[in-house]
Structure formats: C-alpha cells, structure tokens
C-alpha cells in the first residue's frame, strides 16, 4: 500500500497537524529543509514545493536575495493540480540559489543531512530531500536540471524521480535552463511516486513544451553500465554498487557493460547550454518590479540595474558571466552551438543503448561530503561531480534514484535511466527493488503510533 492510501486509513487526532508542525519547526531549525512552512495546513496529504515553484500568496525566492519578498500572484501548474486533488501544501523547500549547485551550499541557509548534520544534503533540491527523509507522510515536488533531484535523494536516502523532459508542465517554475528543467517527485518509496506523477503530468495550456505522449512500462530485464562513468566512482562506492548488481543479477537481470565515445563531452555540453539559458533567464531580475527593490530612482537605468544585480550570489554571477560569454556572437559557434550538437549526438547514442534495457549507475562518484569540505571545492571540481547525473538530464531522459546501501551511517543512491516516456518502467523497477530492501530513516515526523 502506498503511504497516501495508508495516510487516509490511519486514525489521526484532531491536533495531528499542529503536533506535526511543532515537531517540524523544531527539527527544521537545525536541518533547514524548509525555507517557509505553511502553518495553516490542517487537512490532506502534505506536499512540499521546492522554492523555485510559484505558490500563490507564498514568498517564493528560489533561494535568491534578488527575489526577497517576492509573492507570486499565481500557482505553478503542478501546485494547482495537487491542491485540486486532496493534497495540502506544507511549505517551500530550501535549495541552491536558482538551482545552481550540487550540494545545497549555495543557499542562504544550508540544508543539513538528516543522517549526520555535519554532511551536506546534496543539491540543488536539498530541502526537498531532507523534508522527504524526515516526514513520514509527505511527497516533495522538486526540480532537476542536471541532477538536482537524484543527487540530494541519493545523499538523504529517499527515492528521487525525474521524468522525461516535457512530461510535467513547467509553468510557474522559476527557470534555470528551460530546455532541461524538469519538475519531479521525491518520496520515501517508489510506490508513492506514480499516483503523484499521474496527477501532475500531462499537457498544459500554459507550457508549449509539454507533451501528450502516453507513458509506458517496458522492462527488458537488462541493466547496462556505462564503463567510463563507473570508472569515475570512488573504490568503496564501486564495491557496494557491484554488490547490488549481483543482487539484481540474482533477481533475473542480466548485467552488461558499454562505453560511449562522446560521454566525456557531456559535462561541458551541459554547463554551456545551462549557463547560456540561465544568463538570459536571470536578465529579468533588475530590482524594480518584484523581489529585491531599489527605491532610489535618480540613477540612470544601467547604474540602477547594475546595483540591483550585485545581490546575486557568487555562483549565480559566475553562471551569468559564463553564460553571456558562450552565447556572444564571436564564440557562439565554438561553444553554444557545439554544445547543442553534442547533446543531439549523445541523445541518439543513449536512446540506442536504452533500446536494449535500462542504464544503471551510482548517482554520485563520492559519498556525501562534509559541509566544510564541500565549500573548499573549486567550481570545476563541483561541476565534475555531476558526471553521472548529467547524461540523462542533458538528454531529457527519465531516471530514478533510490537507496541501495548504507555506508558509514550515510545512504548511497543508484540511478536507473530509461528511454523517453518509459517512465513507469523505472518506477516499477524501484518498487520491485523495495520489496526486499529496507529503507532507513532517522526521523518520522507525522507518524501515528
């Protein structure tokens, strides 16, 4: 039984939500999962929304100072669909500013790993993963551009589903990289994913890129490992991952190995496209219509905009600069258009492999680092950490992260990738995995004993 059905069937006291909120507020002070908690929740199954999703009347900042105090006048389509279906909004979850980060440390408050607070929660949907890991009955609506669902899900020991690009409307999602942004779902088990996915997916009159393709579940009982990517992984993780493969093999899956000639170019391709698009998306924040505002109108507009835009965080500024550079006329062919070409080439390579079966990989090459260690990494070192999550994200392929081992007290996650619109197949795959693998959680806020 999924926890949504279970939640309806359990006896809850009249002060259920109040007690839940009290406990949540206390824990949130330490873990910073939520940037905003909805204290008026008093019915329905709780869902949280990553802070880059617009919720009408609720401050929505995408963790950026430039959007301080911004209260959207409308709901994102996903939020609207959930609110119309017995789901209740419990709060906005913390994230890296505009989704720019892999560890959740580019935020105003850093979300902490619930298994050990010294460690990162992963990013950019850091708060969504922490919230899922600490709340017994809850689903998180998160978003991934290059790995922002799989990475934090893997570090926090929850299931993180990123659907096919275009399966879920992005209307009301504060854009990072429009051609790759995908709204997805985090839950404690795969069983909770499908009912939520079915509610929020499908065409939307407010997002031209949404698709009406039907979703399939084709499982060929073959798992394919991309060798060049597995080679990037820490020895310890590799051992545990291979153990899991043995287990899956025993369950009837054949394991095969492949390599992809241009896989090395995927990180560069991803960051060039993502930054180019991000630099245009962030151009609208100029400090005079919404969010952070400058009141001194005596300035020349250029000075005014420049002053306002100084409040972007460091990583946002870096991406604006690099993104503006790669789309400038004299280098556009060399960087931006070449990156698009690499994306097309990689997509066709991956689709071909995926005709045979699923691709399976660890999510991250390292276990969750300590917050202080993550802060010491150079931008390039951080970008390289995304090597395993970028290929499916760059190509818009559905993938799902799930816990497969616990090491040193911290969960480890693997990801399964499939062809476009075969989303059900990988959800079903993880449901099968869950049957004889017990997930661990340190907190169970909202549990009725």
């Amino acid at each position, binding site marked *: 039984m999924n926890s949504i059905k279970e939640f309806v069937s359990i006896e809850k006291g009249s002060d259920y939500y109040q007690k839940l909120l009290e406990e949540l507020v206390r824990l949130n002070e330490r873990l910073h999962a939520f940037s905003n908690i909805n204290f008026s929740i008093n019915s329905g199954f709780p869902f949280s929304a990553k802070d880059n999703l*617009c919720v009408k009347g609720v401050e929505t900042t995408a963790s950026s100072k430039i959007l301080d105090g911004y209260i959207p006048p*409308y709901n994102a389509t996903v939020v609207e669909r959930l609110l119309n279906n017995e789901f209740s909004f419990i709060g906005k979850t913390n994230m890296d500013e505009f989704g720019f980060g892999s560890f959740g440390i580019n935020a105003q408050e850093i979300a902490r790993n619930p298994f050990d607070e010294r460690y990162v929660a992963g990013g950019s949907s850091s708060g969504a993963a922490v919230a899922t890991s600490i709340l017994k009955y809850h689903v998180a609506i998160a978003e991934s551009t290059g790995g922002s669902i799989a990475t934090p899900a893997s570090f926090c020991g929850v299931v993180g589903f990123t659907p096919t690009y275009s399966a879920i409307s992005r*209307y009301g999602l504060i854009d990072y*990289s429009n051609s790759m942004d995908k709204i997805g779902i985090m839950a404690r088990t795969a069983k909770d994913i499908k009912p939520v996915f079915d509610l929020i997916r499908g065409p939307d009159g407010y997002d031209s890129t949404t698709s009406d393709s039907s979703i399939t579940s084709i499982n060929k009982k073959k798992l394919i490992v991309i060798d060049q990517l597995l080679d990037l992984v820490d020895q310890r993780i590799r051992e545990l991952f291979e153990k899991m493969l043995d287990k899956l093999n025993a369950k009837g899956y054949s394991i095969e190995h492949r390599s992809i000639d241009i896989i090395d170019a995927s990180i560069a391709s991803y960051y060039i496209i993502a930054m180019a698009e991000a630099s*245009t998306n962030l*151009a*609208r924040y*100029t400090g005079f219509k919404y969010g952070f505002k400058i009141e001194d109108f005596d300035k020349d507009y250029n000075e005014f905009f420049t002053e306002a835009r100084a409040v972007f965080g460091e990583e946002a500024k870096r991406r604006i600069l690099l993104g503006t550079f790669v*789309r*400038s006329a004299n280098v556009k062919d060399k960087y931006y258009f070449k990156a698009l070409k690499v994306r097309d080439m990689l997509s066709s390579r991956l689709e071909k492999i995926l005709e045979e079966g699923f691709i399976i990989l660890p999510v991250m090459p390292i276990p969750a680092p300590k917050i202080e260690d993550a802060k010491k990494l150079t931008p390039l070192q951080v970008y390289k950490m995304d090597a395993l999550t970028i290929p499916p994200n760059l190509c818009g392929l559905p993938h799902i992260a799930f816990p497969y081992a616990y090491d040193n007290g911290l969960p480890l996650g693997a990801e399964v990738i499939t062809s476009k619109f075969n989303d059900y197949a990988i959800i079903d795959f993880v449901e099968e995995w869950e049957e004889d693998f017990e997930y661990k959680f340190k907190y169970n806020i909202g549990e009725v004993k």
Partner: protein
Amino acid sequence: MKIGLEVHVSLPTKSKLFCSCSAKASEPNSAVCPICMGFPGAKPMLNEEALRFAVGIANALHCKINDRVSFVRKVYFYPDLPKSYQITQLYEPIGINGFVECCDGKRIGIRRIQLEEDAAKIIRGDDYTLLDFNRSGIPLVEIVTEPDIKSEDELRSFLTELTSILYYIGIDIEGELKTDLNISLADARVEVKNITGIRNLIDAARYEIQRQEKLIKSGAKVAQETRSYIEAKKETVGTREKETEEEYGFIPEPDLTSYDTTHMQRIKPIYASKIADEYAKAYNVDKKLIAELILFDKHALELIDATKDKHEMKHILNGIGLIKKYRKGEMKLEAFEKLLELIKEGGYIDEEILSKIEKGEKISTESLNIDLIKKEVRQLLTPSIKLDYRKNPKAINFIIGKITAKYKISPREVAEIVKKEISD
C-alpha cells in the same frame, strides 16, 4: 542614394502574442498578466492568430515562407523590456526574399519578415517616467527591406503600396507605423531610429537627404552613425550611441517549440494598385482617380468589382465618390446600381437622396432632373430677389416653396441650388 527600412507593424489580434491578455485595452496597465509582465516562472504560448497574420503578410509580399518557424531571445537591458529579452525571430523567420512592386513597376526587395513582441510603453514626464505594460507583448511584424529605395518619391510610393497591401490583409495602420530608416547618399550608413508615423518618416528622410547632400557638396564626410528624429523641429540629431555591432547574445527560445506554417491558408493577396491599373487601362480612366478611391477602401473595390457594366467606369467612380463624401458606412450593391442609374440620368444627388435610395424609396427621375430644377430656379430668381437676399436670407423662401411643391426635393437642397445660382 540608398534607403532601406525596418518597418514595425502592430497586428490587430484580439489577444497578445504570448498570453491571453487583450491587445486592445486602453486604461494603462489593465491588460497585464504574469506572462507579459515577465514574472518569474511564467511561460509564453504562441497566439496562432498572430502567426496567421504574419504568414499572410509574408505571402502578400512575395516572400519565401519557412515551413517551420522558430523564435529566439534577444537580450538587452531597458526598463520597458520586462524579461530583459525580447522574443523575436532570427534563424527561421516567417519569410525571406520577397518584394513590393511599386514606383511604376519597380520592385523593392524585402529581406525578411519576422514576428516579435512589443515592449511596454514609456511615458516620460518632467521628473518621472511611467510604464504602461498594456503594450508589452503586443504582436509586431517587422518588415526589413533591401536598400532599394532611391528617392523620396520612391519612398512615398513604397509606403503607399505597402500600407495598401497591409490594409487588404486586415491591418489598417492609420499612420501608426514605427520605422527605422537606413539612408546613405555616400558610403556611410546613417540609421534614424524609432520614427513614428508615415509623415514623420518622409520628413525625416527628406531632412536626411538634404543634410547629407549638403555635407557631400561641402566636401565633408558623412559620419556613420545612429540618429533620432525630433518631430517638433523636423530634423534628425545624432545620438551618442556607440557605432559597434550590437551584442544581443541570441539563443533559441527554449520555452517555445517550432511552428508549422504549411497548414496555414495562403489567401491570394489583393493588390489594389494593380487593380486600379487594370481598370484604368481597360476603361480609359485616370489611374490615380481609381487608386485614390480603392487603395484603402475595400468596400469601394467591392462595388466596382460587383458592378456589371464597367464601361460606365466614370459613373461608377463618381458614385463611389459620392458615397465616400456623404457617408462612412457601406452601400448595398442593389442601392448602388440605383445610384448609378441616377448618375447616368444626370440627377441631383446628395446625402438625403442617398439615404432615400438605400431605403428603397422611389425617386422619380423626372422630379430629380437637376437641370430642369435649375432652369426653373433661374426663371424665378429676379434681380430684385437677388438684392433682397443680401439683406434678408429669407427672401428666397418663396422659391424654395414653389420648387418643393412641384418636385420631390428637400427645402435644404433647393436652398443650396438657389444660393449657388445667386453666387454664380
């Protein structure tokens, strides 16, 4: 001399280009939404009606129309641009390589036609600036010509032809055209930006031609620069904009897909000037006379086309002239044919008679024989009445009374005839 234009035409669609806000609101900032205000998270949805209009324009201007069209982001910072980028076209515009035939058969090349969104309207006061976002997201079609225009006359001719073609597509621009003018008499290209209206455009061009001629004659160099037109002074002045290639960092608009135009009907365009030409030749009337009547009047053209006996072209034109003079609305063909009969018989026609004809009231041609009435008025109009009339306008009343008693004609009409006779 080389003149090239970038003409921006607002499309008369019901809603804006990328949202469902009305494109016709008047109260400032009353037709706005998260999409046309560029709020975080809002996404554009293409208005099919705008795409159809744009394809119609490209078709009428003989362009090669792209089967699939797409959009780009043009990034620059200005307070009237809510997203700090304009959604416009670059790689797959609506159409390319067309022409407008004007200036007695000469073709002015059309380089490209693209669909894009307008920015907000800036209203400047003494110590404040206001923004009206009603205009933000209004669909614009940009028509870029080749530098084929060689004189002020050709410019006029081109603009008349272009606006007439647009009129027959359903875009009545009423002088509200926004144009960038590129003009060079020597080597250096001078661009006069953001000229509003056709009259200003022609004035700006004339000023620039004279200014550049003077410079060249005096042996000075014409500087390559961007200028702006000052309407009050009827002159152009240099802006201090840098003369470097502007960097807009175009990228494909990832929130829109590409759009198929092949299913869009290519309606055969109406070239009213060409029709005027044909009729002028066929029925031996002045081309200008027909052109004047039909270039911006669909109804007039319909009446001419529908009239069976076109050999009476002079009468037809006369009739249309009367309709235009006395009434704004349309006239049914049946009534128009009756009107033509009256004209042929030399009957006197004015506003009242026109409305009688339309109502289907019987007008005896005898009673309206204007020559007969005039003759009678002349007989009644003695020198003493003429003199009396100088002191007392009522002196002619008895003539009016006599005539109206005999003929079916209004007192006012008779009074006019009498007055005309007196002043002659």
